[in-house]
């Protein structure tokens, strides 16, 4: 991990196994729900299901500062706790949690390289016990919205070509052949991609065992599509979780300075009335309606 721009944000499964009983470390499994966690998890790990604990369940948004502070406090996490996050689906939702923790300024948060898949494949200990942490006091920073892209920014970036837009969904979602990942509910009215976006599926950034590819491989992957970090980058997918994985790669493994995750993603853009949409692999740039 030494070649990464910020190797301190990644830990291996060996490291986690050696720190299971470290009182300054809190391990958290983050998945879409608790099904995987309930099958057995890293001993001592808490669960943060994405669908109930890492988003506002009333309006569509990430946690508010107050909600985030409550989650940390109830999880026994202090401002100086080292938090190690891992999850299923190759750490998608772990990356979402990491992104949100950085938005609220948590200093030391790390991702377990390879996630749940690697831990289970290696035949490591799995526990059925759910820890009951003692409550802490936690004070979050004001949200750092430079890590997050909102619709107006993305519209401006698409119109003026002022940022590299990276679509991390599957090629079939990018072209518009399908409206959602195979087997999952369709959550948009139109298929395709934001005009000008490059298709770089998130999965190209990981090896078969779920670990991240090397710095050199990642640099070549994004560089071959013209994404070099020389200008702002906005990553998006369907709901923002796969793109938080790519955001993590670009910002922390490659060290790009200006990277934002557009969590509105295709479920926002693909439902907008009048939004320009490109379809196919190499469609010409759509005309963008200008505000009067």
């Amino acid at each position, binding site marked *: 991990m030494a070649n990464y721009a910020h190797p301190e944000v990644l830990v291996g499964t060996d490291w986690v196994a050696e720190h299971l009983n470290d009182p300054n470390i809190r391990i958290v499994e983050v998945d879409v729900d608790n099904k995987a966690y309930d*099958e057995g998890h890293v001993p001592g790990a808490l669960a943060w299901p994405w669908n109930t604990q890492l988003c506002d369940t009333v309006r569509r948004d990430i946690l508010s500062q107050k909600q985030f502070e409550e989650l940390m406090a109830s999880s026994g996490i202090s401002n100086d706790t080292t938090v190690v996050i891992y999850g299923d*689906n190759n750490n998608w939702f772990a990356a979402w949690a990491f992104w949100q923790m950085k938005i609220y300024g948590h200093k030391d948060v790390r991702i377990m390289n390879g996630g749940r898949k690697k831990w289970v494949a290696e*035949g490591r200990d*799995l526990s059925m016990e759910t820890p009951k942490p003692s409550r802490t006091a936690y004070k979050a920073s004001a949200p750092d919205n430079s890590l997050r892209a909102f619709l107006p920014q993305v519209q401006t970036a698409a119109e003026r070509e002022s940022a590299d837009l990276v679509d991390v969904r*599957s090629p079939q979602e990018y072209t518009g052949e399908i*409206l959602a990942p195979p087997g999952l509910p369709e959550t948009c009215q139109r298929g395709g991609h934001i005009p000008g976006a490059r298709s770089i599926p998130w999965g190209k950034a990981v090896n078969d065992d779920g670990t991240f590819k090397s710095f050199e491989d990642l640099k070549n992957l994004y560089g071959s599509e013209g994404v070099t970090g020389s200008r702002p980058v906005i990553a998006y997918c369907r709901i923002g979780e796969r793109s938080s994985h790519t955001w993590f790669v670009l910002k922390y493994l490659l060290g790009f300075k200006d990277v934002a995750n557009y969590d509105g993603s295709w479920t926002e853009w693909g439902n907008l009335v009048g939004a320009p949409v490109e379809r196919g692999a190499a469609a010409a740039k759509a005309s963008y309606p200008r505000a009067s």
Partner: protein
Amino acid sequence: MTSQEYKETKLELEGWPVNVTSYKLGDRFYCKVDNVSPGAWLARTTGATREEAEQAALERARQMLGRTRRQAV
């Protein structure tokens, strides 16, 4: 408790590539089926044997994948 007999297989189901992962935990077998792209799990099941767990997971995944509509582009 540790996972044992971990196994991953790639298959095509309803025209979509999937990963089938199964392992033994205690006296039960656990199975999950992921679509290869993008990599989201579609079904998680358990069974007394690997075959039982895999059969249930594949059936569930087949139902879900069968609902995927392809658009002309």
